[in-house]
């Protein structure tokens, strides 16, 4: 991101007067629209409260309401002081993952279903990874495997090492959207839903072996082998969850 001092103050010409329904929601929508279309970029200053009030034809309270909502969402940062104001800010890491976790956690969804949704993107990325992986990608994947091996030896393997591997593997597809989506499935919240933490100790050794094999298949750009390995690797988790799920349901009945 460019330094604040070089940022242009956004032109108010991109906004139009508000005329419907809940005014502050409309203000939020318009500002988000300007962000989505690229008219507002991270670091850009929004027009002042007074300018927005005049341009949008709403009260200062309404503008302030909208800015607070945007701030709460994590898209706008409000700074006080002489150089203060509202600035567009890039959302924190985990922003999409949190949305995904909220959506799936607050509805009745099963861990197996979530794993299957995750597999769509991780399996789908395999051909792209095989085609585009660089030597640097391979080196970094190997480094993660080495750290996992060491952790297993010391008995302090953490499921986060596994998540890191999967995220780095997906990043080797060199597609920002795919990397982001795979990453958002690896958030701590969803993983706890999938009860991956419980199964980590047993999946540690076998999982680590499979990670090594995956790196080898990707090195050889062997799509079929990598795909089959990933399918078995993730499918094993899904199957275990399924058994655990059935056992738990059986016990409850």
């Amino acid at each position, binding site marked *: 991101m460019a330094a604040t001092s070089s940022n242009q103050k956004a032109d108010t010409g991109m906004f139009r007067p508000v005329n419907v329904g809940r005014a502050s929601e409309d203000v939020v929508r318009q500002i988000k629209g300007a962000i989505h279309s690229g008219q507002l970029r991270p670091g850009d200053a929004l027009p002042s409260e007074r300018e927005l009030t005049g341009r949008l034809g709403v009260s200062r309270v309404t503008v302030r309401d909208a800015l607070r909502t945007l701030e709460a969402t994590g898209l706008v940062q409000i700074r006080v002081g002489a150089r203060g104001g509202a600035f567009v800010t890039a959302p924190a890491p985990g922003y999409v993952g949190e949305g995904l976790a909220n959506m799936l956690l607050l509805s009745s969804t099963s861990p197996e279903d979530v794993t299957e949704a995750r597999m769509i993107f991780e399996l789908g990325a395999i051909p792209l990874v095989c085609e585009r992986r660089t030597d640097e990608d391979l080196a970094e994947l190997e480094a993660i495997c080495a750290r996992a091996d060491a952790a297993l030896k010391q008995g302090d393997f953490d499921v986060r090492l596994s998540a890191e591997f999967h995220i780095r593997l997906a990043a080797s597809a060199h597609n*920002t959207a795919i990397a982001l989506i795979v990453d958002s499935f690896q958030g701590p919240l969803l993983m706890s839903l999938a009860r991956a933490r419980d199964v980590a100790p047993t999946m540690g050794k076998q999982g680590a072996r499979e990670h090594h094999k995956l790196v080898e298949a990707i090195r050889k750009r062997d799509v079929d082998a990598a795909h089959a390995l990933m399918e078995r690797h993730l499918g094993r988790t899904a199957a275990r969850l399924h058994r655990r799920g059935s056992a738990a349901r059986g016990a409850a009945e």
Partner: protein
Amino acid sequence: MSSDASFLTPVAGGRASQQIVDQIVELLRTGELKAGHRLPSERQLAEAFGVSRVTVRDAIRILQARGLMEVKVGVSGGAFVTAPTADVLGERLSDVLAMSDISPEEVAEARLVMELGILDLALKRATDDDLAALGDICEQAEQAMVDDSYDPQLASDFHARLAAASQNWAVTQVAESFRGPLRMAALREREPVDDAHQRTVEDHRVVLEALTERDRDAARAAMVRHLTRGTSLT
């Protein structure tokens, strides 16, 4: 749950409204608060948290913005827990993609990955009902082209119904969320809009026929052709 506020603890220091949000989100995650539950009144919450009503209102606004809370007015009104809709998640992906330097090709590729994954599940699990519903959508779209009343929503409906054929709720919801941010129309700069609709309608029919035959290779090839059409992906 609506009147008992004993599960809340007073807030100390920092940004009070954020701490209230964090406490409530935690209760949602542990399942102590569930979709449909009504929060205690503003006054009760203010007392329980040891903050002003303004702060409580602030917190509820933040929760509303995240799609976790719905405020209803009237006698039986109040702040109700809701499960966020697919739109809320889709917005988040749109936000991040808009702020990253992502190319239209990357977006198209991500969409292709998603749709091929969904197609594989549908090939395994689509029921007669699924196929019939997809057939209805195709028919409606074909008729609309003839009547010159085509609505692009029909294309979206086709992909949504295909996702539902995965018989997996998480997949259906994720697809619903991501279809907007990964929309193709903006990427198909290379063909006139009218042609694009006609070809989309034809493409969907070919995908459906292959799906009905459980011909994986043909179905995947049709989906790849459909989604790479008019883009610079090959």
